[in-house]
């Protein structure tokens, strides 16, 4: 979006101002008050026109910015229910939450299903190993041997089935990691949107700043309200922990801090 108050417009305004000012001085020096008053009137007019132009351009830019936030409207169909890109971004982020949750749940399901298989195979193997040692030392009776014989056969079958099941679970866990790719793409889109919105806002600020300059308004003084940040408000995971010195770098820092407090 490129509709700032044109440089040309501003220069023309300044040139006109200067010209009028010079004329005004000479009229006043010649005691030509009637013409001087007319000049002042036209000066005000020039200024007003410039303000109107600026406000017009600001309005246009604002309109464009709002339209740009809404480019996805057609995708969602209904014209009466126009979802903004911001709304769309919230939906996307919501999707990231549910996708990561689902992936975590499914992965844990698979691990929880695998653990008992591995455990029972391990236990059976430990028992058989003891029996096998007895056999090797020839400390085994004929009936014991017959039992071991059957048990070994069963175990090999269990092993076969169990290994297949474990393999299946492991493959499923690998597949489940696809969430990283999918959520990554969605997050990149949202980052793109945030960057765009920022650009639009900066542009609006710039134009608004020009209007303020022309009208002589200065809102900067009142706009700067001190943002009170409670130092212990919850912030969630730190993404720039290394760049902040009010944040610990890991569990070791936590432990050091706590032990310095007498923990």
């Amino acid at each position, binding site marked *: 979006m490129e509709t700032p108050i044109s440089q040309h417009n501003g220069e023309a305004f300044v040139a006109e101002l200067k010209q009028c000012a010079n004329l005004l001085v000479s009229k006043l020096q010649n005691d030509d008050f009637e013409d001087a008053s007319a000049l002042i009137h036209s000066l005000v007019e020039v200024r007003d026109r410039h303000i109107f132009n600026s406000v017009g351009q600001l309005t246009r830019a604002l309109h464009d910015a709002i339209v740009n936030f809404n480019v996805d409207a057609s995708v969602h169909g209904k014209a009466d229910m126009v979802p903004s890109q911001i709304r769309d971004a919230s939906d996307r982020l919501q999707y990231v939450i549910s996708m990561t*949750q689902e992936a*975590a749940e499914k992965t844990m399901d698979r691990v929880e299903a695998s653990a008992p298989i591995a455990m029972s195979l391990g236990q059976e193997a430990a028992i058989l190993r003891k029996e096998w040692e007895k056999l090797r030392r020839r400390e085994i009776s004929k009936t014991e041997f017959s039992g071991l014989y059957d048990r070994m056969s069963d175990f090999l079958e269990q092993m076969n089935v169990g290994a297949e099941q474990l393999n299946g679970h492991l493959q499923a866990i690998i597949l489940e990691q696809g969430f990283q790719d999918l959520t990554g793409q969605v997050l990149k889109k949202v980052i793109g949107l945030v960057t765009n919105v920022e650009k639009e806002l900066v542009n609006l600020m710039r134009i608004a700043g020009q209007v303020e300059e022309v009208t002589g308004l200065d809102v900067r003084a009142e706009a700067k309200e001190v943002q009170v940040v409670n130092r212990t408000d*919850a*912030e969630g*995971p*730190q993404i720039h922990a290394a760049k902040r010195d009010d944040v610990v770098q890991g*569990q070791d820092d936590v432990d050091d801090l*706590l032990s310095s407090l007498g923990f």
Partner: protein
Amino acid sequence: MKILIVDDFSTMRRIIKNLLRDLGFTNTHEADDGVTALPMLRSGDFAFLVTDWNMPGMTGINLLKEVRADPKLVALPVLMVTAEAKRDQIIEAAQAGVNGYVVKPFTAQVLKEKIDKIFERVGG
């Protein structure tokens, strides 16, 4: 030993539950924020509380303060497991009477260490 796990993310509750089970603690219960956790703590005979910090409703730090203000729960061991990593927050938790503080992401080893340490101190 009856343990209450408080976190607004069910996956995190499940992870902690699994880790605790590996450590031999099988009697675990869950709540998704301080508002649901507090009545459970008051009416149940919980011996240990594991809580997140950042939760809707009632945060973990406020839950900790409520617990310490309740004569029945004042001595309940509390482990904070949270992504909140500011020094001021850790100091506030310590001053509010937390027994251990683990920052996410954490390992099974760290969780075990902190829990062992808490029971060592509480027991001895």
